[in-house]
């Protein structure tokens, strides 16, 4: 790489790489060559590990493959119609949507609350910020294992509830409590990220606007609703979209806590995908589920583009 650039620096006539008539290595050609050399590893990796598998997964979704014989056969839309008629599909759709809504609502509300609290500039808020953020750096699996332990029927949470006279449910085995538990575990794991984003947004709200509102007689809540909330709307939109697409990718948590149970109540789409592809070794059906997952993410991204124009109050 270096030699190609040095050539132009050397006075014409010295021995060395191409300095032919009319100077082949013009600045433009140099830029083209070095630019492509620099991005080559990433570009090749993108072709091999992103673009190719993306096309392949669509291809596989229209085929059936027998893992034992290794034979792949064209199957039309069989895998997709299997997904439509699968008795588990309604439960999976329900679990995915409920998990997503629960996670987004609780996560965003809590992140905003924590950010507002930290933005009060009290002494010692750095300590609290560290505490609220710490689960983000704790290994997801270790965090989930610990909650699995705490949420056992005779585990820590129910022991504490028992001390104060409440008879807690068998969290991870109850039809409704299982989904609630999974949402809660995930909220506390990652809400710190959104909290930091909201905190940065709150810092960007001009003090003068708040003071003007205060002079106009607006109370704290009114100031928050009418000044702060519109000002931080770009962050709210972004964190919401990010949290939604994150909620579609909770796999380890489900596998460790509930394995999709009870009665598929927590069987979200990614877990259902894993079951079909790697527990049942049905790559054709699994690919169809993966394509559906990708389509959902794609639609969400397009909605994000549209919404940004309409909904967001201002964008710098």
């Amino acid at each position, binding site marked *: *790489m*270096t030699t*190609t*650039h040095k050539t132009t620096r050397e006075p014409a006539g010295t021995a060395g790489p191409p300095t032919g008539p009319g100077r082949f290595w013009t600045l433009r050609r140099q*830029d083209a060559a*070095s*630019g*492509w050399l*620099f*991005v080559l590893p*990433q*570009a*090749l*990796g993108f072709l091999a*590990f992103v673009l190719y*598998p*993306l096309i392949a*997964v669509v291809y596989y979704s229209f085929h059936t493959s027998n893992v034992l014989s290794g034979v792949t056969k064209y199957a039309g839309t069989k895998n997709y119609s299997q997904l439509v008629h699968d008795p588990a599909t309604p439960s999976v759709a329900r679990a995915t949507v409920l998990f997503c809504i629960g996670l987004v609502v609780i996560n965003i509300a809590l992140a905003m609350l*924590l950010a507002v609290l930290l933005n009060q*500039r*009290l002494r*010692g*808020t750095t300590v609290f*910020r560290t505490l*609220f953020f*710490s*689960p983000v*750096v*704790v*290994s*997801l*699996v*270790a965090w989930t*294992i*610990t909650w699995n*332990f705490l949420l056992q029927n005779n*585990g*820590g949470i129910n022991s504490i509830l028992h001390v104060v006279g409440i008879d807690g449910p068998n969290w991870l085995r109850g039809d409704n409590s299982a989904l609630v538990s999974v949402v*809660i575990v995930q909220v*506390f794991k990652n809400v710190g990220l959104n909290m*930091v984003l909201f905190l*940065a947004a709150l810092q960007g709200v001009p003090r003068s606007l708040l003071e003007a509102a205060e002079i106009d007689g607006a109370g704290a809540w009114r100031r928050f609703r009418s000044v702060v909330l519109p000002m931080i709307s770009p962050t709210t*939109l*972004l964190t919401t979209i990010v949290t939604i*697409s*994150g909620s579609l*990718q909770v*796999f*380890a948590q489900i596998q460790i806590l509930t394995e999709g149970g009870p009665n598929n109540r927590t069987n979200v789409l*990614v877990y259902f*995908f*894993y079951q079909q*592809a790697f527990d049942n070794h049905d*790559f054709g059906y699994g690919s169809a589920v993966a394509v559906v997952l*990708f389509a959902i*993410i794609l639609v969400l*991204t397009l909605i*994000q*583009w549209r919404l940004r124009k309409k909904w967001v109050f201002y*964008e710098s």
Partner: protein
Amino acid sequence: MSLETAARRPVTLPDAAAPPRPAGRRGSRWRKPLLYALMVVLAVPFVFPTWWMITSSLLPENEVLSYPPKLLPLHPQWSNYKTAFAHYPLAHQYLNSLYIALLVTAGTMLVASLSGYAFARIPFPGNKVLFPLILSGLLIPTEVTVIPLFKMVDRLGLTNTHWPLIVIPILGAPSVLGTFVMRQFFLAIPDELEDAGRMDGLGRFGLYFRVALPLARPALASVAIFTFLNSWNMYLEPLVYETDKSNYTLPVALTQYTDAYGSHLWNIQLAASVTTVVPVLLVFVAAQRHFVEGLAQTGLKG
């Protein structure tokens, strides 16, 4: 592109030393204690699980689920840690995780800074098309591409090796976030600095390596932190690609602490978990600001 807005701006944190806001007129006497009380209550679910993980890892097996709950191990049973290492290939798995995460981090820093530099500062033909295309890799969940990738790895005879855990993250979708962060940083470098470098006779690679890269330490630190943590914590990939327990990395290894009947050996499992969590937490507390600012940029991972 949508990814370049809002939170993609660098996140900076308030200074701890910022002047306190003058107390509000109403309820000023109760305001502070109430706010503190609220924060303490809210901190419980964030701190308590990690605390309980540590204390329970020191209890004898018959006390982990006893009632009333033991919040402090009065007679810590350190041998749980010995058991976790002696009866399971935990030391081996620990080394797997460590060397894989280090290689992936170093590789990603190189690949991402090279392409981030080119996208930011070299006007090569295709630049404007290639960048958004590669960036779209960020949108694709691991699960979507894992079947074809598994088939590819299998055809190459590389299942049950560490190759897919190292090469795919460095060159595939996970490194794209690093490229994005590096590009944002390199865009902000003033042209004058590079011009000065050119006067000194530096070529493109020299400008990248001698001028841009040394300035980019903060961005490189961010990339290093989130890349290391992503690799250290990856779960689906080792589950799919590895079959031998001795090839597992820590997250999958942690789920293996059960007795012959499949019931959990909680105290041993939690001891093993603690060994994967505490070192990271200590580094986090020491380099907090870097972590928060670095990880805030990874928002996309939800």
